[in-house]
């Protein structure tokens, strides 16, 4: 075995997979357990144990690759690519645990209702036309998207390479990087063009009412819809493009710190992604709770009529 080869800026690459491996456990275990029956509790414990074992195994895989990484040149990339272990942990173990903790998870669609689902009630409010995103917010998103691109584009007005670069091919490399980053950052505004449609589709997601069309349920749906749409808007319309274009802008203006901007971009991008994942799980859990309320109201109506 040779001496360790991990450089100072290689540490984030080594530890990023740990974050991704532990994330499913943290998210799933952090959600409140809404099960009251004994059988349901046992199911939750079983999935919790499976997720714990799965996470431990994934961490061992990461540990083994890390052990070799620090002794082999160029090997840190092998440990970096242990992060996709997130996917089997998330979809295979964490999601079943989250479902087990929320008995109303499967009731979010009207088809999932049993006998009480024979009577279905719908609100006649046109939700497509009720957007919580104001014009000022859209203006903010447009500014955020354009500002990043403008900052990258402005670098093109300066000579290549920057004075600090002494290498002969630095000018071509920096120009190419600038063009690449400028092109990639333009994807943000393209995404912004689709966002209104995406938000409109979110507002028309099914909101099945109880048989009596209770005000309580309508209010719960309205509040949840507002949070869902606003969350999606801020993550996709502002935070995402800002993280991408901001990192690119810093990278083209301060090329000497290129490696660090990669790390900052990776961490920023991951933070936005993780925020999106937490947001998604929270929204699904809220929908499950609303489905429980609907089932309760439906049961109350059917027992009142029989």
């Amino acid at each position, binding site marked *: 075995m040779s001496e360790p080869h991990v450089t100072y800026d290689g540490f984030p690459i080594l530890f990023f997979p740990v974050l991704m491996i532990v994330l499913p456990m943290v998210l799933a275990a952090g959600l409140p357990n809404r099960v009251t029956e004994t059988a349901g509790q046992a199911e939750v414990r079983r999935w919790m144990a499976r997720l714990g074992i799965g996470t431990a195994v994934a961490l061992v895989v990461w540990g083994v690759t890390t052990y070799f990484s620090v002794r082999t040149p160029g090997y840190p990339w092998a440990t970096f690519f242990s992060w996709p272990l997130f996917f089997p942990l998330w979809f295979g173990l964490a999601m079943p645990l989250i479902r087990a903790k929320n008995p109303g998870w499967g009731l979010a669609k009207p*088809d999932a209702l049993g006998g009480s689902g024979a009577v279905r*009630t719908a609100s006649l409010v046109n939700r497509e*036309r009720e957007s919580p995103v104001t014009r000022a917010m859209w203006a903010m998103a447009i500014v955020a998207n354009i500002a990043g691109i403008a900052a990258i584009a402005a670098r093109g007005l300066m000579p290549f390479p920057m004075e600090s670069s002494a290498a002969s091919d630095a000018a071509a490399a920096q120009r190419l990087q600038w063009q690449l980053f400028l092109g990639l950052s333009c994807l943000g505004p393209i995404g912004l063009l689709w966002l209104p449609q995406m938000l409109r589709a979110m507002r028309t997601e*099914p909101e*099945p*009412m109880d048989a009596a069309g209770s005000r309580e349920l309508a209010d719960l749906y309205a509040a949840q819809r507002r949070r869902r749409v606003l969350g999606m808007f801020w993550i996709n319309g502002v935070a995402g493009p800002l993280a991408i274009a901001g990192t690119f802008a810093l990278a083209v203006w301060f090329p000497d710190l290129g490696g660090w901007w990669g790390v900052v971009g990776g961490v920023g991008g991951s933070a936005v992604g993780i925020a999106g994942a937490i947001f998604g799980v929270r929204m699904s859990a809220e929908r499950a709770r609303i489905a429980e309320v609907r089932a309760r109201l439906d049961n109350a109506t059917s027992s009142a009529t029989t």
Partner: protein
Amino acid sequence: MLTISLASSVPIHDQLVAGLRGLIAAGSLGEGDDLPPVRQLAADLGINLNTVARAYRELTDAGLLASVRGRGTVVIATVERPSGPKSDERKRIETGIAAAFSDAKIAGMSREAVEAMVERQINRLWRTAP
């Protein structure tokens, strides 16, 4: 609110049409009111998209609804466009009333109970009439 029953022998499409006509007749839906998009209503009720689209089309043909660019489906009238001679329309309604009264009698309802029911419906639909 629009309610349908999957357990009913009445087809869902007919329930939708009757439900929307009932809301228009009762004044719950007035001229200029927006209706939800077909996709939204179908998703909320957990029924086929085409069933809702067909119901909207039928009410559009009757002159009660219209598709307006940028707004979707809108209530444009609370009185149906006549599809034939006035006498035919009266005859159709009277046949419907006769069938409902026959059902009430066969179900064992008293005359007073039926009269009270009729009174309730008249008050519900014509309460705002001058």
